């Protein structure tokens, strides 16, 4: 019959108790340090990242830190060597890694998008040829509502690695027209009329100063370039409105938009018999 030494049992229990207590203490310290890291991160990033995204990033960092401490410090205390997990972990990691490659890529891209903030919810953007309004930027994908009202989901990796044009990132933007008038028309008068029209439009900005000038003498017309700055939120309406207004007011003042034409010179004078 096997008789267990009571002293050995007590010392064994106390050793396990110490290990458990040490593990709990390590976890508590990891949680506290994780909290401190999250507070520091929140302070330093709160101006750069919106609150919803910041919460997600902070949670990812905080839990990653705690899991790291668990694997590296707590498991050895409890007698589980991380190296023993390596074989199983590496195989599982390989499988998971292949399976989740695109997810991780999108996630990392999403984090960088949230930090860099090239686009915001509500912005008018062009991402890789997709034009529309940003509806949502999540950790994995970005949602665009295009101008036809369609829902478009773009993986964040595609957003991050492609050219992004944000039409409203700056408060004002410029657009231009080319107005071709006849050679017989007075270009100075046309420019004066166009400038007056621009001046009367509230959303054609006073400064930066709008421009109207003869840009080139074309085959069929004298080409006047018109450049106008407008608030980014209003530019499309102004652009749609002003071109036709320019055409109408020039017409009212006897200045016409030129049509393509050819002046033909005959080597021999054209003869026609008249009765």
């Amino acid at each position, binding site marked *: 019959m096997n008789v267990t030494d009571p002293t050995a049992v007590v010392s064994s229990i106390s050793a396990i108790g110490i290990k458990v207590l040490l593990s709990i203490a390590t976890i508590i310290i990891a949680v506290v340090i994780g909290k401190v890291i999250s507070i520091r991160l929140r302070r330093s990033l709160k101006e750069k990242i919106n609150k919803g995204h910041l919460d997600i990033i902070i949670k990812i960092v905080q839990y990653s830190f705690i899991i790291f401490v668990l694997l590296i410090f707590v498991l050895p205390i409890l007698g589980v060597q991380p190296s023993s997990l390596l074989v199983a972990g590496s195989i599982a990691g390989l499988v998971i890694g292949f399976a989740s490659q695109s997810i991780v890529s999108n996630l990392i891209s999403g984090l960088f998008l949230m930090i860099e903030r090239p686009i915001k919810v509500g912005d008018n953007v062009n991402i890789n040829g997709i034009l529309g309004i940003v509806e949502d930027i999540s950790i994995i994908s970005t949602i665009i509502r295009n101008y036809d009202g369609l829902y478009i989901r773009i993986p964040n990796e595609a957003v991050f690695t492609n050219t992004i044009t944000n039409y409203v990132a*700056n*408060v*004002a*933007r410029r657009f231009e027209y080319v107005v071709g008038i006849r050679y017989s028309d007075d270009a100075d008068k046309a420019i004066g009329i166009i400038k007056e029209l621009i*001046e*009367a439009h*509230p*959303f054609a*900005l*006073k*400064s*930066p100063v709008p421009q109207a000038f003869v840009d080139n003498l074309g085959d069929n017309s004298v080409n006047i370039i018109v450049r106008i*700055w407008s*608030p980014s*939120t*209003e530019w499309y309406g102004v652009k749609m409105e002003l071109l036709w207004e320019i055409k109408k007011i020039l017409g009212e003042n006897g200045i016409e938009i030129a049509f393509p034409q050819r002046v033909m010179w005959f080597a021999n004078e054209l003869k026609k018999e008249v009765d």
Partner: protein
Amino acid sequence: MFGSYNCPVSIEKENLLISLETEGDVKYYRRECLDNEVEKIVLNGNGNILFNPVEPVNLPKEITSYLLIEFERSFMVEPGTTRKIYIKFPVEVGVFISAKKKYEVIDVFTMVNQKFILYGDPRSGIICKYWLSDVYFSLPSADPMLEGVIELEIMNTTIHWAELTRVVFNAYAMKIYYGDDIVSMKAKMKIMAGEIAETDFVNSPINKGMKKSVELYTTRRVVALGTKFLMEKGL
């Protein structure tokens, strides 16, 4: 024409026609101003209607809360001095209906042209409502339906002369008063460095007996955004 009226109301001026008529318990508000017409149906209400000048940044569309007034003539301010000048600003008229001692705006109109301007650069600048004003050294006269007067106290706290060409105000801070023949505000401009100044408004009329306007930019929003404006993109 500013002030409170009881229904029925009919105001007719040059290029302006306003009426509030009752049919049963329904009131019809109509306004024709220049080429712009508005008609609204008002249900209930005690029939009081109030006209007063409001912050001039609402029309033709509320896209900014800043007003930039460019001076027709620039002027120099001596270092370490305080000087008072008068400039004009565009008037926008708010039409309010009242119920239970609360005012609700139903219309805003103006009889002057609207224009916007960019203060600063397109990347970091701001869009402002634009107005061009001469600089006056005594209280100028102005048609209250078209223009109001700002009494602007300029403090040059620097050790250099400052040349002023414009001033930018934040609508959240505006305190507008009106009398029979004048609309006014009182403001301060503190020049803090060569190209930097701070502007703010003073909550008092320039003449005794003037009435305080009901403002559109309420104090609730002031808390969130602040009332002063820091001109960092040049004077």
